[in-house]
C-alpha cells in the first residue's frame, strides 16, 4: 500500500511552497541570530532608517517567522500524504534561502536603507559578499530545480 502511494503523482506545488517558505524563514533566522545577535554587525535601529524601511522590515520578519513554522508543518503534511519529493523540496529550499538573502541585501540594505551589513568599515566588499552568496544559493536552487523537473517527468513517462 505504502509503495503504491509513493508512486502516486507527486504534487510539485506543495513541495515548492513548503521548501521556499522554510528557506525564507531559516535565512531570516540565520540573519537574526548571526548578524544581529552574535556578530552584532547589523543594528537593531539605524538612526537614518526611514519609516517605510521599518514597516517593510517588520512585516518581512513577521512573515519569515511564520514561514519557518508553516514550511515545516507543510513538509510534515506532504510527508504523511506520501507526496514529498526531496529534490524538488531541496531546490525550493535553496531558492528560499537565496531569495531572502538577495532581497535583504538589495531591497532592505540598499533601497530601503534599513541597516547596513557592517558599520565603521568600507561596506562595498561586505555588500558584494552578501549578495554574491545569495546569488550562489539561488543558482544551486535553480540547478536542483531543473534536475528535479527532469526526474519528475522521467518518473511520469516510465
Amino acid at each position, binding site marked *: 500500500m505504502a509503495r503504491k502511494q509513493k508512486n502516486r503523482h507527486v504534487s510539485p506545488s506543495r513541495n515548492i511552497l513548503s521548501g521556499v517558505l522554510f528557506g525564507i524563514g531559516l535565512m531570516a533566522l540565520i540573519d537574526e541570530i548571526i548578524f544581529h545577535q552574535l556578530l552584532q554587525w547589523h543594528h537593531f535601529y539605524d538612526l537614518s532608517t526611514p519609516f517605510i524601511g521599518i*514597516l517593510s522590515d517588520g*512585516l518581512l520578519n513577521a512573515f519569515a*517567522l511564520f514561514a519557518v513554522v508553516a514550511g515545516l508543518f507543510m513538509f510534515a503534511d506532504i510527508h504523511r500524504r506520501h507526496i514529498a519529493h526531496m529534490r524538488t523540496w531541496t531546490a525550493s529550499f535553496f531558492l528560499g534561502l537565496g531569495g531572502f538573502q538577495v532581497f535583504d541585501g538589495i531591497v532592505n540594505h540598499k533601497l530601503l536603507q534599513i541597516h547596513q551589513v557592517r558599520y565603521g568599515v568600507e561596506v562595498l566588499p561586505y555588500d558584494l559578499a552578501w549578495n554574491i552568496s545569495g546569488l550562489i544559493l539561488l543558482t544551486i536552487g535553480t540547478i536542483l530545480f531543473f534536475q528535479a523537473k527532469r526526474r519528475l517527468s522521467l518518473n511520469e513517462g516510465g
Partner: protein
Amino acid sequence: MTHANFLPIEFTAGFIALAALLLYPIAMHISNGKHRKWPFHRYIFWSAGIILAALTLTGPLAQLAHTDFTAHMAGHLLLGMLAPLILVFGKPMTLLMRTLNVPAARNLSRLLNSRYVSFVTNPIIAATLNIGGLFLIYMTDLFTLMHTSAWLYGLVHLHVFLAGYLFTISIIYIDITTHRYSFMYRAIVLVLALGFHKVLSKLIYAAPPTGISKDAGESGALLMYYGGDIIDLGLIVILCWQWYQAHAPKNAKDSRTGVI
C-alpha cells in the same frame, strides 16, 4: 512625572484575580455534577494565566512598572500576550456554558452569536483593537497621562488585557468559537499584527514616550520586540498545528497522531 495613587487599582486587580481563581473550581464542581469530569489541567492553565495577569497590576512588578520602563514592558507582554495565550487553554467559555442552567446558557449562546461578538472576534478587528490600542498608548500622550490618573491607568490596562485576549481567541480556536475564519485569513492577520508590533517596538526604540530616558526606552523596546516574537511564535505554532490536524488526509489511519 507625578504619580497618582494606584492602591485602588492594585486592590481591584487582586480582588478580580482572587475571584477568578475561586469561581473556576466552583464552576468545575457544579458542572461535574451534570457532565463529564472537567480535566484538572485546565484549571492549572487558568490559574497560571490569572496569576501572570495579576502580577502586572499588583505587587512588586506593578510597583516597579510605574518607574522602570523595561518592567512596564515586561508587564505588558505578560498582560496582553502571555496571560491570554495561557488562559484560552483553560477554556473558560466552555466551562461557563456547561455550568449555567439551560435558559442562561441559551442567552449566552445568543450573545456569542450576536452581530457585535461576530464583529469584534473578526481577526482583523481584534488585531486593530489590540495593536491599534498599543500605538495609541505609546505614540500619543496617553502613556504620560495614564500615570497621572489611576482610573485611566486601570482602563488602559483593562483594554490591553481584553484586546490581547480577544486577539488570541480570534487567531486560535481552543475555546468555544462561534464565528470561524479560514486558516489563511487568520495567518495573514497574525503576520500583519506581529509586523506592526515590530514596527511599534522600533518607533519606541527611536523615540520613547515623554519622560522615558533613551537607554530605558531602548531596553524596553528590545524586550517588546523579542518578547513579542517568542510569544507570537507560540501562536504561530498552535495555528499551524491546528491547520495540520484539520487537513489530515481522509482514510489515513497511520497519520492520526494528535489528541486534543
